[in-house]
């Protein structure tokens, strides 16, 4: 059941190649245009910092799109009603999507790593690459929960809008596209409350930026997971009351 669901999700990713291609190519293009700038002292550090930033962006984009847009589509097309009439365990489709999203995110960041190594000449010890990878893939969880909440609170068209309206401003305000220090004061004040800022901290730290209070970021991300999970459960219950009670 779960294996079949995972296979179906991979097939979906392969067939919606515009979506998949965009998810893989857009961070790569941004990295080539923005992340490879600079030369001389400090450039190598900047290249690593930008790589961590765009990996963060890629992972969050995939989590929000996979869960937000496809969940909204399944509700909009009433596929969820058909599934409810089958004996499928509700967790099976969820696990299928999560496995596919994590594999997709891994592919996106490996592509960025390749660009970093081949185009920017980044060299880091293996432990650092490994730390960056597992942190990004583990910290995808709060964004999966966030995507789920979007998917349950909006319709198919609304979800695409919602994902973009949330993702781009949140990326800017979290210092993903430009370093935090170059942002206006208002945004600098907001940033520490955004989940992506904290995922950014985990990623930047993995490539060598020291932070004293990294545990705070972990707590923030855990808190956001709980918050979005609660919103999702509330939305699922509301949906049950409206359509399936």
């Amino acid at each position: 059941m779960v294996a079949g669901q995972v296979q179906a999700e991979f097939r979906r990713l392969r067939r919606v190649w515009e979506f998949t291609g965009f998810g893989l190519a857009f961070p790569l293009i941004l990295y080539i245009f923005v992340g490879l700038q600079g030369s001389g002292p400090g450039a190598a550090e900047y290249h690593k910092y930008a790589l961590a930033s765009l990996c963060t962006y890629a992972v969050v984009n995939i989590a929000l799109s996979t869960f937000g847009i496809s969940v909204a589509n399944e509700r909009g097309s009433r596929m969820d009603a058909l599934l409810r009439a089958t004996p499928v365990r509700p967790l099976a489709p969820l696990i299928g999507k999560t496995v596919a999203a994590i594999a997709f995110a891994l592919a996106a960041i490996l592509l960025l790593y390749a660009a970093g190594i081949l185009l920017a000449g980044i060299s880091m010890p293996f432990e650092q690459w490994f730390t960056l990878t597992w942190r990004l893939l583990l910290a995808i969880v709060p964004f999966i929960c966030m995507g789920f909440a979007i998917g349950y609170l909006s319709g198919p068209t609304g979800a695409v809008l919602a994902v973009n309206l949330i993702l781009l401003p949140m990326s800017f305000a979290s210092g993903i596209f430009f370093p935090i220090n170059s942002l206006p004061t208002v945004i600098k004040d907001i940033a520490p409350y955004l989940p992506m800022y904290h995922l950014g901290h985990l990623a930047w730290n993995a490539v060598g930026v020291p932070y004293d209070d990294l545990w705070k970021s972990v707590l923030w991300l855990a808190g956001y997971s709980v918050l979005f999970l609660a919103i999702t459960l509330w939305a699922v219950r509301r949906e049950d009351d409206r359509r399936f009670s």
Partner: protein
Amino acid sequence: MPGSTASSQVSTASAEPATSGPVVELVDARKTFGSVQALAGVSLAVRPGELVGLLGPNGAGKTTAISLMLGLRRPTSGTARLFGLDPRDLRARSRIGVMLQESGIPLTLKVREVVDLFRTYYPQPLSTDKVVEMAGLGEFQGSLVGKLSGGQRQRVYFALAICGDPDALFLDEPTVGLDTATRRSFWDQVRGFKRRGKSIVLTTHYLDEANALADRVIVIDHGVIRAEDTPEAIRALVPGKKVTFHWRGVTAADLAGLPVEGLALDGPRVAFLTSHAEDVLRALFGRGAPITDLEVAGAGLEEAVLVLTGGR
């Protein structure tokens, strides 16, 4: 290992509910949505191997009745049982197959792939080849679901409904929007499935469909059962004739006092049912009614339902 066989038989027997009782049962089921009463106390049972047609106009409560049977909705009062279990019980759900109105399927999968996916949900599915053959999907099995026409997609829904080799099949308005030839070939597929000894619940507002397929017809309107019998017996509830003609400028008052039922006026076109066709026509001609295009025919299931549902 005879010992283990015996013990597994015992555990199977306790896990499986009794199969001799009704497959589906609604007992005084009521359902209200806000202030709207969709079902106002419906009791029905479907026996093993039986094909029951739920017939009624749009908005009669057919889909609500099916939703209760499937556990997609819960009755406001009364009970719904599937194989003697709560319809939300996965053991009950493992034994049913469902075609819903306007439900989505993964458009990015090929026909064979989506059948394979749904097969993994069921404990003892039919083989993919068998499902593809029974649903008439042979030539489309490699096509993407998203590229199929409406009629072809309907076959995919049928394939998904039967892939678990269910004991009961629920078809909610399965042929809406299909052309006549496609509908007839769909009927053949349904008959083929029934020959395997399976129960089928079919909702439809096409009378010929109920007539062609059902062992028993349940006429629902305004959330209550108006009649429940074989298609032939229901037809016999209206023993009279169906009379149609054209009469320019006709109003209902022109036919007042005549023994007619189910009167329908559509511009100059008049249609009604009567057990006294000769008397009615004699009276009309006596009044000098300018009637043209007169037709008198034996009333069928359509007319019977029209009368039963008050001409809606």
